[in-house]
């Protein structure tokens, strides 16, 4: 309280903040960056451990013997898939039925807002098939899900085969206390979205689907399986879901525990953990893994079919079988045993997975960085903005008594309104105006959407010139200070909220936007500042993010390829929003882009 009411103390603090502002800002930014880099030190973060009692202490013995049968099922499935030219609905239903499961199908249809060029689809029709294994020991109040996608070509046949073999084996066991749903979904995430909406009887998107006939209880956990070879060398686990949501860490711990038990190799972000930990390459390796996770989470795209489960409070992850050139291979029986063990332990759950962490970053599979450890990194970055805000805030107040007229708030309304209107246009126009664009320009719909997006984005940068024509003479020296104050406030508020919802996105954006936001002012080296600001724009962050990701995956992309990837990422981002409700696109268009435009306005203030 003394700090707030004692004028002496306040004056001292204000003096300190005003005098040392730039120094403190640089220091704070460095500290934030350094803190984040330090997170990757192999020994710093704690080891993962199982918090959930029901899954930790009990032992299970895995006996899955049907490895050969899984491969046979896979081959049958492949044959019927080729014959049917898509999901072999009848064969799958019959097979599930003959295994003693309740078999159901769910047809769905969805017209995309514009054609998806990556996956070449526009008007999608498909059918999900699922079988429910009713638990002999319980009243269908809880369920677990094992899912495998029915993909085009030769992909994932073995996954469906293993799913069927597991269903056959699980049917014969008597210990199940939760229903188990075996789901084969068509058109990857679209099918998953249709199925989840049908299961929970909601309609969040424009999906047309038949209602579900068969239901089990509330789903406690889900595992999505992707497997395209008869033998595997390792498993890659994907955790990032829609909007960067993560499953409870215990589910991941469960998987690693069984991998260790069965001697399976497992990787995260495609990176195998190194055995040494005290060398520089080990640090670089763990930093690469961490950065890949941050980029994957920041994109807000589900990294596997499990990504949509998380929205319904169902803990889920995707397991991806990898067959590389390693010598030692594992057969289906081992893989089946691992899954059997996981399901048996999940079967023992007494309540939802909630003991362990929901907010974490993984520099390797055996170490995790929890929210308490990584938040200070962002805190230091946001502190830069707060320092600048206090500088302008105090500066304005101190100057207020010196007789210079306070800028009328009315003078600031037009730039703020125009910037936000540009954001609204950026959000609405590309999809709405695709028809007009295809009529007048020789482009396809998908291209039209992306090009309109870029056109509006770039056109927004011409705004300062037009707004100044509107308010000629209104802008004095204090005008831009207040505008900058507003922009900084909006930016820090947005970044803070984003960091709570999706830490990685908030952090990546803070990393790029904070220095430019702190430095920008109409006087000084204008070209340099403009270049800095352009580098910090969200679109540029996306481009740089893509290039960095390719670099980290050790398949660097050139500028031309990067540009192509950038265009497709834009289209994917829009699609993700319209299809699944990812919030990245509205946040960018309605929040960050206007905030950035305000800063751009400050730079060209006259």
């Amino acid at each position, binding site marked *: 309280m003394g700090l707030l009411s004692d004028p002496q103390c306040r004056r001292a603090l204000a003096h300190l903040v005003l005098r040392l502002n730039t120094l403190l800002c640089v220091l704070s930014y460095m500290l934030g960056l350094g803190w984040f880099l330090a997170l990757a030190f192999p020994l710093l973060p704690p080891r993962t451990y199982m918090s959930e009692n029901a899954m930790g202490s009990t032992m299970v013995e895995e006996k899955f013997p049907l490895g050969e049968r899984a491969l046979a099922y896979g081959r049958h499935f492949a044959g019927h898939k080729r014959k049917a030219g898509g999901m072999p609905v009848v064969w799958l239903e019959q097979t599930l039925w003959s295994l003693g499961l309740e078999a159901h199908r769910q047809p769905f249809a969805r017209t995309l807002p514009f054609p998806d060029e990556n996956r070449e689809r526009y008007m999608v029709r498909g059918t999900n098939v699922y079988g429910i294994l009713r638990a002999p020991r319980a009243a269908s109040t809880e369920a677990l899900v094992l899912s495998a996608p029915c993909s085009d070509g030769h992909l994932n046949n073995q996954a469906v085969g293993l799913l069927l073999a597991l269903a056959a084996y699980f049917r014969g066991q008597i210990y199940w206390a939760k229903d188990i749903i075996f789901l084969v979904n068509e058109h990857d995430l679209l099918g998953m979205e249709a199925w989840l909406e049908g299961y929970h009887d909601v309609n969040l998107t424009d999906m047309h689907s038949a209602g579900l006939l068969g239901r089990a209880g509330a789903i406690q956990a889900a595992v999505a399986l992707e497997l395209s070879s008869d033998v595997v060398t390792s498993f890659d686990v994907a955790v990032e879901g829609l909007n960067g*949501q993560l499953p409870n860490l215990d589910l991941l711990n469960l998987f690693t525990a069984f991998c260790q038990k069965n001697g399976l190799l497992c990787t995260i972000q495609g990176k195998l953990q190194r055995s040494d930990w005290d060398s520089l390459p080990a640090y670089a390796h763990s930093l690469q893994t961490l950065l890949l996770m941050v980029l994957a989470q920041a994109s807000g795209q589900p990294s596997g079919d499990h990504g949509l489960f998380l929205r319904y409070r169902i803990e889920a992850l995707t397991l991806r079988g990898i067959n590389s050139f390693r010598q030692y291979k594992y057969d289906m029986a081992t893989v089946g045993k691992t899954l059997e063990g996981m399901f048996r332990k999940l079967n023992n759950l007494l309540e939802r997975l909630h003991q362990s962490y929901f907010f974490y970053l993984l520099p390797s599979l055996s170490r995790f960085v929890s929210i308490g450890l990584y938040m200070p990194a962002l805190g230091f970055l946001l502190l830069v903005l707060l320092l600048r*805000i206090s500088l302008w*805030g105090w500066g304005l107040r101190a100057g207020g008594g010196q007789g210079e007229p306070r800028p009328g708030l009315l003078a600031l309304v037009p730039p703020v309104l125009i910037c936000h209107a540009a954001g609204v246009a950026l959000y609405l126009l590309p999809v709405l105006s695709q028809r007009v664009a295809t009529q007048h320009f020789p482009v396809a719909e998908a291209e039209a959407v992306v090009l309109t997006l870029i056109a509006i984005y770039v056109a927004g940068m011409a705004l300062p010139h037009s707004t100044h024509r509107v308010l000629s003479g209104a802008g004095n020296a204090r005008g831009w200070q207040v505008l900058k104050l507003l922009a900084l406030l909006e930016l820090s*508020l947005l970044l803070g909220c984003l960091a709570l919802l999706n830490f990685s996105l908030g952090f990546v954006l803070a990393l790029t936007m904070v220095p430019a936001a702190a430095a920008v002012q109409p006087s000084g080296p204008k070209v340099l500042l403009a270049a800095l600001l352009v580098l910090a724009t969200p679109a540029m962050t996306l481009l740089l993010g893509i290039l960095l990701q390719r670099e980290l995956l050790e398949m660097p992309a050139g500028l031309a390829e990067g540009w192509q990837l950038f265009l497709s990422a834009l289209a994917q981002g829009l699609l993700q929003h319209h299809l699944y409700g990812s919030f990245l696109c509205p946040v960018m268009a309605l929040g960050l882009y206007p905030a950035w435009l305000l800063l751009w306005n400050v730079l060209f203030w006259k």
Partner: protein
Amino acid sequence: MAAPLALLLLVAVTVRAALYRSSLAAFIAERVEVASPLSAWKRVVEGLALLDLGVSPYSGAIFHETPLIIYLFHFLIEYAELVFMITDVLTAVALYLAIQDFNKVVFKKQKLLLELDRYAPDVAELIQTPMDMHYIPLKVALFYLMNPYTVMSCVAKSTCSINNTVIAFFILATVKGSAFLSAVFLALATYQSLYPLTLFAPALLYLLQRQFIPVKPRSKSFWLFTVQYAALYLCSLVVIVCLSFFLLNSWDFIPSVYGFILSVPDLTPNIGLFWYFFAEMFEHFSLFFVCVFQINVFFYTLPLAIKLKEHPMFFLFVQLAIISIFKSYPTVGDVALYMAFLPVWSHLYRFLRNVFVLSCVLIVCSVLFPVLWHLWIYAGSANSNFYYAITLTFSIGQILLVSDYFYAFLRREYYLTHGLHLTRQDGTEAMLVLK
């Protein structure tokens, strides 16, 4: 001045009408910050349905509005959106007229004191001029109508905005000096939400001041007027309560409305301080702590009445803020009502210390409410502690804001009588410090 007000009303109504038609309306109506168990429109509809079925609306545990409200909507249910827009407009107009009149009084009083040489000689820059005061009523109306909190409250059809209208009319009646109408509206407001009971003190002080009756325990006219006003208030309260009894032919509404307000059985999260505390507490302590929490609202009335004897309008503002912070089921609509008064005290600007920081805190909290709610309820990755932390910050922000204004007001009054340039005993320039 009528033209800008009309324009403002038009814009406000347009914004509300547009929002009613958008998909946001359903989302806003579900927000716990906007609709409390007392004021949620869903619950009013439930009560109406029960009433139509010939069952007492209070027979379930859902409906907690007063009988008058349910009968009002019994006839107007088709025009509910219109009713809520009109109540907002009426509130704004009432506040506009009240503040216009209040400003005239302030100006007259200032002139009188200047002529009587009660002010220190060097305080010319502290004097309010008509130029400064010209736009204040309009700003008050603007602050009320365009405040996002009011807009959301109206779009959610929270009955809180009706309570606000009643209180605004009570303020208007008080400022205009009509003891009778003031008592009637105060009784209505008390009947609606109980807590406006504490506004009795500022209203009485204002009316006394207006009739030039000195506030002295010895003076006979003081007691006469007080008894008169109190009797008017109590009589109208009794009449309204009896009317409610005759409407429903039962006393069910007393425990169901006032018992519900006082004993706080519904612990749905809101922006207040009660829910988390009582959700965590053992049952057998709760009676004691309910008393402690409820006393908070009434506790400050007496000291404030003594300190702000000469400034009943400021007292009214502080009391409204205290109600909206400490009441058992606060919503953002309550916050909006006292925030509408902030432009009236714009002359305190130079004495405010933290208003920038505090408004940032309030804005940040308002944005974080839905974010943390999402993380808690939908994503399942946060828990109630996160949400309560924001509730707490929001309340602290409001408390600090009000105390900042209070302190600034006292400082201005001190400077007015003692001169702007204070000197210490040793001749150096002195500074007022709140210890």
